Every structure is written in C-alpha cells, then in structure tokens.
C-alpha cells in the first residue's frame, strides 16, 4: 500500500503533535494549541482525535473506535478502516483487548486499565465559550483561575429548568486547577474521567487544541452545594442484556409508541449477552 507514511501523517507532524500531547500531560486540563493538519475526512468526523491517534499509534497497537458507544456506525467504521489501511494495525471491538481507543461521545463501560489510551474527539474545547466568546479573555480566565463564569452557566441552567439540565459536555475541574470540557460525553460518564488508570487525550481539529487527563488524575464535576452533581441515566435496565447500571439509548421500535432501551456501549452489551445475561426483550430463541 505505502503511498502514505505510517498512520498517514509524516514524522515531522507526528512529533509536533506528540510535543503538544506531552505538554498536555504535564499540565492536566490545559488546552495546548497545535497546528492541526488537513485530514482526508471532514472536520465533523473527528479530525482532532484522528491526528492524536495517528501520533500515538505504534505497529503493535490494537485499535478500537467507537461512536456513541457503537463500533459499527459509519463514522467508527471509516476511522477504523483508515488506520487499518494507513498503519496496518490490529483492530478489535473489545474494550479490554484494545491498547488505544478513539471515541466520540462515550467512555466505555468496561473499566480501563494502565497502558491503555483513550482518545476523545472534541468539537468545542473551550468550556467558557458559551458565555465569553473572546478567546483572549477566556485564556486570561484560565490563566488566573477566574472561573466564576462557569458557575454562572450552571446558575442559568437551574434558573431556567429548576435543576442543572446540562446533560452532555458537563464541565469539570481537572487536578484542582483547570476547568475542562470533557467533550460531549453524557454526564453519566463524568465519574469515569476521574482516577482512571488509562491516559485520556482530547483532540479538537478545527479548533486546533489538544488536552489531556493523565492516569490517576482527580476530575471533579462542577456543581452547587444545594444542587449537587448527579451522574444520571434513564431509569431502566437494558432490554437486551438486562444491565441496570450501563448508559442506555432509547430506540423506537414501531409507529405505535413502542420503544426499547439498549446499552449504548455495544461491546459491553454483546459481552453480557454472550455470558448469558438476558433483558426484557431479548430474543427468546437465544435464551439458554
């Protein structure tokens, strides 16, 4: 195949990205600027994550790519194929087998371990952007730990909805220093950001930012004393595997209001079903 360098990007570019990653690891939660490259896919497809993955991949890696928890969406499939073609790495859908996982919008249910890298695709890295559009000002706010505005956002949420309605991209404080946007993962996943044995890297392609949460780093979700953070999910069990502790997607099954809840993490759900767990709507013929 080799019209491309290993993992598509040239070594010079990968070195530049690795320097940004190292800086991000050294200053957890800090947004490091980097010179984002054109990738042979549109921005919405996670070019930031793809570049971080390209800079981290080694021939011995085993790659997993998920989109909203699923390994088989168009986005996940094409990114996985991209690295199979350009890096010839092994791939897997099993979280525990993967050495590097690129993700959009979820953290896998299975606990991560030391040595694994989780790469997040980030659309908007700046958590203060919502209320302060000026980049010069948000940078100064980070530099001076001037984060009152973050709570103004949560205040507005409660004033409008009676409760903190933010359910995705819920802002966090990393290592007691930098406020960070964890990318649009559901707030259900926020607790998994904290103290993870895996290295977590975040890449924003269009916005040209990389940031990191090194292994075993404390990550706290912002809240008010009288409106504490809650990692909520739909109050159901998975209709396929019966898990009542995993994050669920609601699926409409017919035009008469029929619906079911299934794990958003397809690998997690498959593994449980293979192990014999059954939910409310699991196929009868496969019941042992």
């Amino acid at each position, binding site marked *: 195949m080799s019209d491309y360098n290993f993992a598509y990007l040239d070594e010079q570019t990968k070195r530049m990205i690795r320097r940004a990653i190292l800086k991000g690891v050294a200053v957890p939660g800090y947004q490091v600027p980097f010179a984002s490259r054109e990738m042979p896919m549109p921005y919405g497809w996670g070019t930031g994550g793809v570049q971080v993955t390209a800079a981290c991949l080694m021939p011995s890696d085993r790659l997993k790519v998920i989109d909203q928890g699923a390994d088989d969406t168009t986005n996940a499939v094409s990114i996985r194929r991209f690295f199979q073609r350009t890096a010839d790495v092994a791939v897997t859908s099993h979280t525990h087998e993967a050495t590097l996982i690129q993700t959009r919008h979820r953290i896998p249910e299975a606990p991560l371990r030391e040595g694994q890298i989780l790469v997040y695709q980030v659309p908007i890295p700046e958590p203060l952007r919502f209320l302060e559009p000026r980049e010069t000002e948000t940078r100064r706010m980070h530099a*001076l730990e001037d984060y009152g505005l973050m*709570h*103004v956002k949560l*205040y507005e949420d409660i*004033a409008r909805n009676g409760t903190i309605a933010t359910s995705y991209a819920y802002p966090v404080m990393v290592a007691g220093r930098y406020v960070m946007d964890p990318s649009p993962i559901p707030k259900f996943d926020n607790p998994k950001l904290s103290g993870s044995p895996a290295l977590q890297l975040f890449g924003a392609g269009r916005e040209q930012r990389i940031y990191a949460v090194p292994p075993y780093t404390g990550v706290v979700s912002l809240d*008010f*004393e009288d409106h504490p953070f809650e990692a909520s999910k739909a109050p159901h069990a998975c209709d396929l595997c019966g898990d009542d502790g995993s994050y669920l997607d609601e699926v409409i099954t017919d035009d008469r209001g029929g619906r079911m809840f299934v794990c958003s993490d397809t690998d997690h759900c498959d593994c449980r079903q293979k192990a014999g767990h059954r939910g409310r709507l699991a196929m009868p013929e496969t019941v042992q």
Partner: protein
Amino acid sequence: MTPQTPLLSVRGITRNYGARIGCADVSFDLWPGEVMGIVGESGSGKSTLLSCIAGHLTPDTGSLIYDTRADGPRDVLAMPEPERRMLGRTDWAFVHQNPRDGLRMGVSAGGNVGERLMAVGARHYGDIRAQATDWLERVEIDAGRIDDRPRQFSGGMQQRLQIARNLVTAPRLIFMDEPTGGLDVSVQARLLDLLRGLVRQMGLSAVIVTHDLAVVRLLADRIMVMKDGRVVEAGLTDQVLDDPQHAYTQLLVSSVLQV
C-alpha cells in the same frame, strides 16, 4: 475626625496615545466616603484617566496607592494581576456609560447580579438567588424580573441592574463613566436619586466622570475640571461651580447656564 489615610492616592498619572495626550500628570486624594467628580468637555481626558485608575488601561507613568482592607496602603499598579483582578470584582465597582459594556446581555438579571458572588466562591444556589433578589429590589427592579435578560429591560433599568451587579459584593469604591449618559432626563433624575441614596447608605467612595455639571452638583463633594488631558481647576463642588477661577471653568459653567 478626618481619617489619617486616603482611600486612594493618585499621583502623576499620565497616559498618551502615540503623540496625542490622553491625560497628563493627574494627582488627587480620595478620602473614605467622598465622591469626586471629574468634569470637562468631550475629549478632555476624563475616560482615559478613569480607565487608568480603575485598571482598564495601564498608565505610562504615575502611581495608585489604595488602602486595602487586608494590608493597608498598596501600590495597585505593582500588584500581581490575580490580586488586582480580585480587587476589581470585590472592593471596587465600575459602572459603564453603555450598559452593554457592563452587563452580560445573554445572562438573566439574577445571573448578572450573582456573577461576582460566584467569582469569589459562592456555591449555594439558593443563597446567590436570595442576594440577587434583594439587590434587584434595592435598585427598584421588580424581583419577578430576576430570570429576564437585560435585553428586555429599558435603558434606565439596565443601568440600575449594572449598579446592582457591581454593589452585590459590598465594594468600598465605585467608578462611574457618564452613568446617566444615554438616558432621558426624567430617567436620569431617578437614577441619580438612587445613586445618591446608595452612596450614602453604603458609605461608598466614588469617582464619577461626566460632562453634565448637574450630575456633579447633585453627587460630588469635590470636583476636578479637565482640559486637554490636564486638571485646570479643583476644589469643593459648590465653590468651583459658583465661583470658577479658571477661564475654562467659567466657560463650562456659563454654557450650562445658557441651556
């Protein structure tokens, strides 16, 4: 019973824009509880001076000594930025002429008032909201408007909201740049009454910039008259306005009387 230390000592503040003079060699003391008016025609350097004092502009030369609560007199210009910023949102207040510059237009009235509280660590929603409600009432805004955005407010209400947002941390010093500038005369009068009441109740010290001599007549204990970036006359408000010494002040006063 005069206090021993001025709240703010301004010494030799100069700020140029290239070859053009913004303000030149301005010095004065502001005593606790005192309101200082700065008057002069458009372009005389009032806003430049106020911005330099309030920390929005860095002066070319000069010093600013502020009597801090914790450590007594400190050189504000030599403070590290985090400390200066903290001062700016706790012990100091700034009311802009244009409410758009002093409010977050996309945030509710309650959020606008609560921001300074949250910036200094308030983390109890109920308490923040109670204080915001209290302050809206103090500036005569119906507490029922707490969740409305400033866009839905009249000019006078926006200005009163800006004042509430600034005073919620109980500052000791408030800077105002033409606070009644864009308002109708009747609305101006109400705002001035409100300001005068708050300044007295809270024992606030203030530096107020205006081209409107009626405003300083009502609010200021002392005034400084500026022309071409320099102070040409200073003194007790009534003395200066009733018996102006400098030809320029005489002109200012007489042009007001002609209106």
